[in-house]
């Protein structure tokens, strides 16, 4: 009932003739919430400033960008703000949380705006749109999106006599690890219990972490057991080191010290990893995550969404800001500044992007992988709790040597009994 009401209100707005007078009397002040620091923070601040100096000045809109910490912290604050009744106008939203906030009416459908301004949705890469749509309505536009890729210390690979362009299949991956360990003494891979990377492994086995209707988990499925076994075998042989917990800190310690040759990480950290490599005197190569039955990667990162509790004037101005931010020129800027994938095909044709791909081909890797093999992420609100179970299973099996069968069946039993994915 809540969604219908919101749709009606929106249509009324569209009907009004002058959508937005060119030079509105008083400027509209918008707040824009974003996550993460370093390169990503600089990118958000620069884009907001550029908007205020160009499109914003024309339309009389002023945007202030506010840092809100990690995605989890941002979502917590959004809830508190919603309960308190004063949410920001525009915010980034981690793609797996879009459905939960859409169904509870915190964010608004964008479909009416998209139809009105005739936004070419096909220009966006198909893989990125899955997590922008809830029940047939658009709730967000792809902004800073990423996919996981395989990073390699090319210098170590060369020293181990391996082709620096990287392994193509899981078997090659195993051989690479064996060779690196024997030839250089470093670990083949340093892995941490990251559910997002696990989703890629599942996709490559033609499966997903949750069943297509997202009602049950596949943690105890044959594919899942296979993935656990594959890496447990490498860990037992000492070719791969697994660090407990989600936090990346320990992984990077090994990379910087060249104690490991390969690691899975988001393309968003590309510029950071390139810099790190320069600082510590080695070269970084990137390639698709090696395929099992097929290639396959989940997408990640965040969309831009429109919050519901604001006046019509603010809402229209907010939409203008979202439209501008996701336009191909801005998307290109974000892509080259951070390493997040280009979100639209039109971005790739831009001259500055072509030269970028010539100079640093690593930028293109994630894009190619995304085009053919990009998939969405589960959006069931209960998935947050399932992820904790999955991480615990990875910790148990990979870092604490637990038995695969019993751990996975116990976890699956718990997920169903706790009705984590249950209907509302």
């Amino acid at each position, binding site marked *: 009932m809540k969604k219908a009401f919101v749709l009606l209100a929106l249509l009324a707005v569209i009907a009004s003739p002058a959508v937005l007078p060119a030079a509105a009397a008083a400027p509209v002040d918008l707040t824009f919430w974003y996550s993460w620091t370093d390169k990503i923070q600089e990118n958000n601040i620069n884009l907001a400033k550029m908007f205020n100096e160009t499109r914003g000045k024309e339309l009389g809109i002023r945007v202030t960008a506010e840092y809100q910490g990690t995605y989890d912290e941002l979502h917590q604050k959004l809830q508190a703000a919603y*309960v308190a009744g004063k949410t920001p106008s525009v915010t980034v939203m981690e793609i797996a949380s879009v459905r939960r906030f859409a169904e509870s009416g915190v964010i608004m459908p964008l479909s009416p705006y998209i139809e009105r301004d005739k936004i070419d949705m096909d220009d966006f890469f198909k893989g990125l749109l899955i997590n922008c749509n809830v029940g047939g309505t658009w709730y967000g536009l792809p902004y800073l999106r990423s996919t996981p890729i395989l990073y390699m210390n090319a210098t170590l690979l060369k020293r181990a006599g391996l082709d620096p362009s990287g392994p193509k299949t899981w078997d090659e991956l195993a051989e690479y690890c064996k060779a690196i360990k024997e030839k250089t003494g470093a670990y083949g891979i340093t892995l941490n219990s990251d559910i997002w990377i696990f989703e890629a492994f599942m996709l490559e086995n033609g499966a997903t972490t949750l069943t297509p209707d997202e009602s049950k988990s596949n943690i105890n499925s044959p594919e899942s057991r296979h993935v656990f076994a594959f890496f447990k075998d490498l860990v037992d042989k000492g070719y791969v080191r697994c660090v407990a*917990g989600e936090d990346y800190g320990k992984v990077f*310690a090994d990379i910087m010290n060249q104690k490991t040759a390969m690691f899975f990480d988001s393309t968003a950290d590309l510029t950071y990893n390139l810099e790190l490599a320069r600082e510590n005197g080695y070269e970084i190569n990137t390639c698709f995550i090696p395929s099992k039955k097929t290639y396959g990667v989940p997408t990640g990162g965040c969309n831009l969404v429109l919050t519901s509790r604001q006046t019509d004037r603010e809402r229209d101005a907010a939409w203008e800001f979202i439209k501008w931010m996701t336009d191909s020129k801005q998307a290109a800027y974000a892509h080259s500044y951070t390493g997040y994938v280009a979100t639209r095909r039109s971005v790739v044709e831009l001259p500055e992007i072509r030269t970028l791909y010539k100079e640093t081909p690593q930028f293109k890797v994630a894009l190619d992988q995304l085009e053919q093999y990009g998939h969405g992420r589960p959006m069931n*609100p209960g998935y947050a709790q399932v992820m904790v179970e999955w991480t615990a299973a990875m*910790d148990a099996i990979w*870092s604490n040597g637990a038995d695969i069968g019993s751990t996975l069946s*116990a976890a699956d039993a*718990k997920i169903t*009994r706790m009705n984590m994915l249950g209907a*509302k």
Partner: protein
Amino acid sequence: MGNREMEKAMDAYVPLELPMPKAVAIQKLLRRAARAATPYIMVAPAILTLCVFVVYPILYMVWLSAYRWDMIGPMVYVGFGNFAELFSNPDFYLVMGNTFKFMFLTVSVSIVLALLLAVYLKANTRVNALLRSFIFVPYVISMVSVAFIWAWLMNSEYGLLNFMLGKAGMSGVRWLEDAGVAMYSMIIVAVWKGLGYNVIILVSAMHAIPNQLYEAAALDNTRPLRAFFRITLPMISPTLFFLTLMNIIAAFKVFDQVALMTGGGPVNATNTLVFDIYQFGFKFYQLGYASAQGVLLMLLIAVCTAAYFGALSRRVHYGGGA
């Protein structure tokens, strides 16, 4: 007294005639009423604050524990559903086990060590005073600092502890990553932080014991160990009793350390009840479930405190010693 002054005082002395106020009935009544109301006025600010910020939230939590709610969606009444789910969740028993294990070991080790150190550092020499200050520093600084220092010390690859173990010929320990070891690492850190406070309090309690008792004991040529159990321990038992209770409550509500060092630890090995409540409340947005856990924690603390008072209060010796 100087006689000369007395002489002079004599002539100046005139009995003081006090103005006896005409006791108007109303005035006295007013004063008596104000007098009766004073205690309530004085207690009001504190009690009001407690009601608004402790009593109301607890009642609200008990009420909320009967609902399933994710803070922004609709509230669904589930009655005892949350409690049923709570008791059917195997992790719950693991978390309870962790909480009691952490509480029991931390408190017992800390108190025993504190007793030993208190006796050892009781004498007021300069060295002792310096050592007492050093031991006290960890209590004064924030748990954030302590957690990061020890997370870095206990780092499997680059930590100092493993380096020292290596030097001593032993193999490195994955302090915070090995499910079996993680909880003991947490206990080491908790004892390291709280020891100073316990030692200082016990030393002061020991200083309050009159020295004649020990002199008398020496005359009866009592062996020092016996003197400790027959004189020192009974005499400091009230302080020890109170201190242990404070330690228990503090150990029960540990959160910072778990959140900062291990986030519940490998495979929930260091997850304690309070951190679990936070996790369910703020990560999984299951406010009803978290409230049910909260109600349970409250009952547990009440039972533990009551049991503690019942069991030990009889053995505490009150009263002076001279």
